[in-house]
C-alpha cells in the first residue's frame, strides 16, 4: 500500500483541480509523439503525424489525450488503491495494445513538463516531487499485469 503524506495528497488534488483537462492531456500526448517519435508506432491509425504542427492539430491525438486524462482521474479518485483500480487497464495495455511499459515513463515526463508550463512557479520542487510520486504509482500499477 502506498503511503501518501497530507502534503502529497493536497498537492496532487490541487494540481488536478487547476489544470485544464482538455488541454493538458492532448498537449502531453502530442509532446510525447514529437519529442519521442518512436512512440508513434502505437498510433498508426491516427493519420497525419508527419511533423510537430500536424501532431499538435491532429483531432485523434486531442481526443486520445482526453481518454488518458480520464484514466488518470480514476487514479486520482482512488489514490489509496491505484493498483486494483488499474488492473483492467494494465491487462489492456499489455495484452491488447502491447505497449512497451517504458513508454509510460516517457508520457509521464511529458505530462510533468506540460503541467509545469501551465502552473509556472506554483509547480515547486516539492509539488513536483509529489506529482512524480503519483505518476510513479500509476506507472507501476499499469506495469503490474505484464507477464
Amino acid at each position, binding site marked *: 500500500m502506498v503511503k501518501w503524506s497530507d502534503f502529497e495528497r493536497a498537492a496532487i488534488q490541487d494540481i488536478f483541480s487547476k489544470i485544464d483537462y482538455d488541454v493538458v492531456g492532448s498537449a502531453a500526448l502530442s509532446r510525447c509523439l514529437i*519529442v519521442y517519435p518512436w512512440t508513434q508506432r502505437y498510433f498508426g491509425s491516427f493519420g497525419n503525424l508527419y511533423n510537430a504542427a500536424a501532431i499538435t492539430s491532429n483531432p485523434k491525438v486531442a481526443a486520445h489525450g482526453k481518454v488518458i486524462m480520464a484514466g488518470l482521474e480514476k487514479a486520482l479518485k482512488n489514490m489509496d488503491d491505484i493498483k486494483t483500480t488499474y488492473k483492467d487497464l494494465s491487462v489492456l495495455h499489455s495484452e491488447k495494445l502491447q505497449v512497451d511499459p517504458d513508454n509510460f515513463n516517457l508520457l509521464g515526463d511529458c505530462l510533468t513538463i506540460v503541467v509545469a508550463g501551465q502552473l509556472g512557479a506554483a509547480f515547486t520542487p516539492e509539488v513536483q516531487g509529489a506529482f512524480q510520486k503519483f505518476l510513479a504509482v500509476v506507472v507501476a500499477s499499469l506495469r503490474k499485469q505484464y507477464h
Partner: protein
Amino acid sequence: MLSKKEKKLIKEIWERLTPVAADIGSDALLRMFASYPGTKTYFSHLDISPGSAHLSSHGKKIVLAIAEGAKDISQLTVTLAPLQTLHAYQLRIDPTNFKLLSHCMLVTLACYLGSEFTPVAHAAMDKFLSAFAAVLSEKYR
C-alpha cells in the same frame, strides 16, 4: 541528431539563461533532490538546502557548462574534455543520474519559459541534454 535550426534555438535559449544561471541551476537541482532522493547522496559534502550559497554556486556551475557546450554543439567532445575526466575519475556519478537532472532541467525550463517552451524547443533541448550527458560519460570506461 540535431538540425541546424535546433542547434541555433538551443544556443539562443542558453544565451538568455546565462545571466540567471544560478537561479536556473539551483531550481533544477532542488527539483532533482525532491523527486529523486537518491541523487542527494552525491552531495553530502555540500549544504543543498533551498537558498544555500553552495546550491546557488553549484547550480550556476552546471548551467554555465551547459551553456558553453551549447555555443558550438558540434564541438561538444572538445569543450567537455576536462569535465569528462572530472566525472569519470573523480566524481564518478552513475550516468543514469544525468537523465534525472536533464529531466528536471526541462521542468525548470518549462516553468521559466512557459508557453515559449514549445514542443519543438522541448524536443531539441531533450536531444541536446542527452547528447551532453552521453559525451560527459564517454571516459567512464
